């Protein structure tokens, strides 16, 4: 009975959180179109999310591409289809690995930092300080961060895929001896703009919105204590990662991208 009650309470809390998150998302959307436009703050956040994530995204992209090249070659050779290496690497990166891995990386680096920053602003009463100056913290702090995540994610995804394709090319063509022209041609023939590239863009935009929402919400609703900051940070990474994987399945199932 006790377990049942706990389960019920958890389910209830989950639904309450979802509802609050929807209201929070509405507030962000409303503040996005409400002047004044905080372009300087948005640019600063874009730098924090985008530029500061470049190194990790590019390095990870190149590594993932290289591993994919190696694994793909080994597998394809069994079927005598090593000439399709470019198509396999390209399709798996563009359709699936690029957006998902980029989102996971950005959640770990920028999402957690975002949540921690907002949570520490809660702890040090900075958000209350803004309210006392009649400045809406969602307008001043949250919206530029969430928007920066939304805008940065597709760009980081593109970079990840670009570096991964390069990594795959290096391993496949330079190291394993697949013909360069064949590699590129099979990739070009396999990847379509309206299906695969549009799909990766759709996924990365949705993931960007998701991570931005979760990171800002967890920070904004955190307890005003040091444990609140750590809970917000951990919560962002865990919830964000699970949500990315769940939404990835949903998007793939619904739209086949």
């Amino acid at each position, binding site marked *: 009975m006790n377990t049942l009650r706990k389960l019920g309470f958890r389910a209830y809390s989950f639904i309450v959180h979802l509802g609050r998150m929807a209201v929070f998302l509405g507030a962000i959307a409303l503040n996005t179109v409400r002047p004044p436009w905080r372009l300087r703050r948005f640019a600063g956040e874009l730098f924090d999310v985008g530029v500061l994530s470049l190194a990790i995204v590019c390095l990870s992209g190149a590594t993932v591409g290289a591993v994919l090249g190696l694994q793909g070659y080994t597998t394809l050779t069994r079927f005598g289809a090593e000439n399709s290496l470019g198509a396999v690497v390209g399709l798996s990166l563009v359709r699936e690995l690029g957006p998902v891995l980029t989102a996971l990386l950005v959640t770990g680096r920028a999402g957690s930092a975002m949540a921690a920053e907002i949570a520490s602003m809660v702890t040090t*009463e900075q958000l209350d300080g803004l309210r*006392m100056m009649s400045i809406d913290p969602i307008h001043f702090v949250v919206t530029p961060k969430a928007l920066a995540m939304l805008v940065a994610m597709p760009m980081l995804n593109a970079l990840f895929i670009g570096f991964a394709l390069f990594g795959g090319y290096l391993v496949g063509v330079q190291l394993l001896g697949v013909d360069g022209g064949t590699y590129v041609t099979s990739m070009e023939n396999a990847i379509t703009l309206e299906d695969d590239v549009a799909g990766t863009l759709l996924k990365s935009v949705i993931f960007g919105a998701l991570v931005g929402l979760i990171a800002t919400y967890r920070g904004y609703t955190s307890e005003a204590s040091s444990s609140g900051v750590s809970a917000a940070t951990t919560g962002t990474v865990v919830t964000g990662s699970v949500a990315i994987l769940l939404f990835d399945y949903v998007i793939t199932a619904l739209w086949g991208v």
Partner: protein
Amino acid sequence: MPLAAAGPTGGRMPLSYPRVQEDPAKSGLEGEARVQFEDVHLSFGQRRVFEGLDCSFARGRISVIMGGSGCGKSTLLRMIAGLVHPDSGRVVVAGEEIGALAERELFRVRERIGMLFQYGALLDSLTIFDNVALPLREHTTLSEADIADEVGRRLVAVGLPDTGALFPRQLSGGMRRRAALARAIVTDPEIVLCDEPFSGLDPLNVRRIEKLFATLNEQLGISLLVTSHHVPSSLRMANQIVFLVDGRAVCGSPQELRHSADERVAGFFAAELDADASPENGP
């Protein structure tokens, strides 16, 4: 320091909200309640903070809120600011019941209030200059030159003339609080709420802030509500003291409370003054 002549209410800037321009003593408004608590109850979980709190804070006065640690001094200020809402009862600020207002409507009331938080609450990502300039940039149409002028004047007033380019993390706790005070008063609000403004300050700066409060009060008619443990400065500057004990308020002039029949109240003042006069504290 002639704040009235030079400050934002000096007639140069169009602020977006109504301001107190008149001298309350001359206008006959002095003594009118600007903040009122009526039968306020508040609990945090099992802990009861206020149990039928009734008190009022007069316009154009310096009111000091005193009491033992954890008696609800900061919470009382946060209720005035609309950051905490009572479980029951009414909190009326400048004629508006705070509990009945939505967050956006509260902004209208908060434009008349400046608040100094206990730890400053300055924005980490902005310099001291930008922190103090923020309310002016958000709510006025002042030019950057006028804002720079105004911010510089306020920083001088709180004894931080050369700190504009620094970030809050580069200042000590006491300096941060003084910078936050500059931000709280930069728009010359009607009511200024100060949470422990003297905590961590050296005696010279305690006197400086006391003098600043007196100037704000006398020249601009600003109502100051200050929480403090610092009995000597409270006795020097307060027109009214609200002493919180057992979730209720005992109100009166400094002299009345110092000689209160309630032993808990009189004892608090006696203990603090004895501690200040003890030989260990020096001459």
